[in-house]
């Protein structure tokens, strides 16, 4: 049967013929150029971060991290990311599902809107929030305590601070990291088409069952990757957050802003120590992504091998 043939082809990979290879010097030059580039632009900067961070020894390194302001910055960064990432996960999933699986008016506009945060400079996005929610902004005057006709007693009784406060930082982070999940999922879902969902429906699955058992598992790696990227950006975002933050030490500083302050104070070792946290985050997400992919591949190969054994017996 055809299955035998395809399974064997799966195992036997013919060696490449010599005549199909490029000459040795071409291969060497290309690989060398690529390695040089990677070293200069990726490995060296990474190494610099950690050597600078550890120059005064591990004691100074951990002291810089345990600093009260540094801890506050870490907490705020984690808070902003833990709000922005789930929000954008849900939004990105919903938007890409709607865009990839359905036809509706204004679809092109929605796609353009999703991409907007990428097109706009983060500093501008930050400024937009200042213009909207700042003391002199559109909504600003209604946010302070006072007698505003349109608002309920609770809002009138409280000063609601958005700009130069935590809500502003969260808003700016959500805005800037808005497209990551959706951008990862839309092309994937479009390539997969609607047939599998329709098949599930004809088999009697409900809309929710179809989503949970067909749509979601099909995009889980894309979704995971989108979330990883979204999280990295949420924690690393500088421009937009910088505009709305106000740089109040211990209160409205995130990790990147704290690094900048330390750097401006010529406290290079501490700046790099805190920066190394973000670098570690990047390395961990990379390793995580590769591990997950590896496990996925292993599982598939194991399934194929078990079938091979069945044929052999």
């Amino acid at each position, binding site marked *: 049967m*055809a*299955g035998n*043939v395809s399974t064997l082809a*799966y195992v036997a990979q013919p060696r490449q013929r010599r005549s199909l290879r490029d000459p040795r010097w071409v291969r060497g030059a290309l690989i060398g150029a690529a390695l040089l580039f990677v070293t200069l632009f990726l490995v060296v900067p990474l190494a610099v971060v950690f050597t600078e961070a550890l120059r005064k020894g591990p004691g100074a390194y951990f002291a810089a991290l345990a600093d009260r302001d540094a801890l506050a910055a870490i907490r705020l960064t984690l808070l902003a990311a833990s709000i922005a990432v789930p929000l954008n996960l849900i939004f990105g999933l919903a938007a890409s599902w709607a865009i990839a699986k359905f036809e509706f008016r204004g679809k092109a506009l929605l796609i353009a809107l999703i991409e907007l945060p990428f097109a706009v400079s983060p500093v501008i996005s930050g400024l937009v929030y200042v213009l909207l929610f700042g003391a002199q902004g559109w909504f600003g005057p209604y946010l302070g305590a006072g007698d505003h006709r349109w608002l309920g007693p609770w809002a009138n009784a409280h000063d609601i601070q958005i700009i130069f406060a935590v809500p502003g930082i969260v808003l700016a982070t959500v805005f800037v990291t808005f497209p990551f999940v959706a951008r990862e999922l839309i092309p994937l879902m479009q390539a997969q088409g609607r047939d599998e969902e*329709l*098949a599930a429906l*004809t*088999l009697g699955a409900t809309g929710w069952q179809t989503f949970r058992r067909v749509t979601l598992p099909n995009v889980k790696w894309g979704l995971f990757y989108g979330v990883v990227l979204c999280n990295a950006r949420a924690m690393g975002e500088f421009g937009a957050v910088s505009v709305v933050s106000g740089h109040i030490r211990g209160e409205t500083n995130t990790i990147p802003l704290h690094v900048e302050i330390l750097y401006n104070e010529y406290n290079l070792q501490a700046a790099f120590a805190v920066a190394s946290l973000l670098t570690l985050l990047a390395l961990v997400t990379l390793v995580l992504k590769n591990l997950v992919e590896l496990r996925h591949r292993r599982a598939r190969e194991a*399934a194929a091998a078990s*079938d091979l054994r069945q044929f052999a017996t």
Partner: protein
Amino acid sequence: MSIEARNISKHFGAFTALDGVDLKVGTGRLTALLGPSGSGKTTLLRIIAGLEFPDARGDPTAGRVFFHGEDVSDMAAGRRGVGFVFQHYALFRHMTVFDNIAFGLTVGPRKNRLPRAAIADRVRELLGLIQLDGLGRRLPDQLSGGQRQRVALARALAVQPKVLLLDEPFGALDAQVRKDLRRWLRQLHEKLHVTTVFVTHDQEEALELADEVVVMNQARIQQVGPPQEVYDRPASPFVIEFLGNVNRLAAGDGRLRPTDQSVLYVRPHDVDIQRDHADDHALRARILHVFSAGNYGRVSLQRADNGEHFEAEVARDRLHDLGLKQGDEVSVVFRHVRMFPQGKFAEADVSDGLLATTRPGYTPAHGAGENI
């Protein structure tokens, strides 16, 4: 379970996919929807399945679909009891073959679901039916195209559908696998007797596999009938041109003597080539090429009178006896000619003298039964 579609129209923007189509499919029949791409056949199938809906849905004048007399027009696809097989299989790519087939048995209302062990038994039974025992743990992309298509079929059959709908089931497979699967599907149908409708653009597939062929073109049904009938008694020029090879010849010349400008259709196997030049009423032609590979030789010819090209299919032995060469002058006799005066079918079987009665003003050449 019989299927009836009544007055189905469907537009996609400015494009008319279906234009007032009526279709009846008898219980237990294997029916082919045959037509070129864009003829509306897949849309009709999807409307029957409940994956698309006719225009003006909810309006009393909208097209309706009945299963065994029951109106299912407003029923969701999942509740119609149809098994649908997609052209590109649409297997759940992250699930094993086993889970794919079991899917339909694990999603219904909880109280109707089979116990786990019964589901496993049913899946194993289906794996046997599609001859893929032992491949349950594979993922779809570890299977060949033909295997995937059979898994898709098993998945659709698992829920014991009352109606089986297949969209270009063999469209994505290569010729040999296609033939094997076709035969296998026919056997399966004999065994299960589920009312089945399949879409195809391959006339050979439709004629070989189906009990009944529905020929579609430009959003309408052109003809419905058993394969033999649509092939032998095509209702329109479209049907004869779409089903099998056919020569299209102008009739307005000295020997083929109709009074109006019309077209004759002659199947290549109804063209007989003769060497002797005794009969000067026979059509004269010159041989352009002889392709002699296979059981039948194909001879391409050019009419002497008006230069039209046409083809003949000649049995290998006959071809050998004639010893035809490129450039030879021969006589040609048409055993069977079809015409469509005013778009209607008229058969012209020379041996019956039918031609004389169906074609006013036409006199068969002397020695009717031999030549036109």
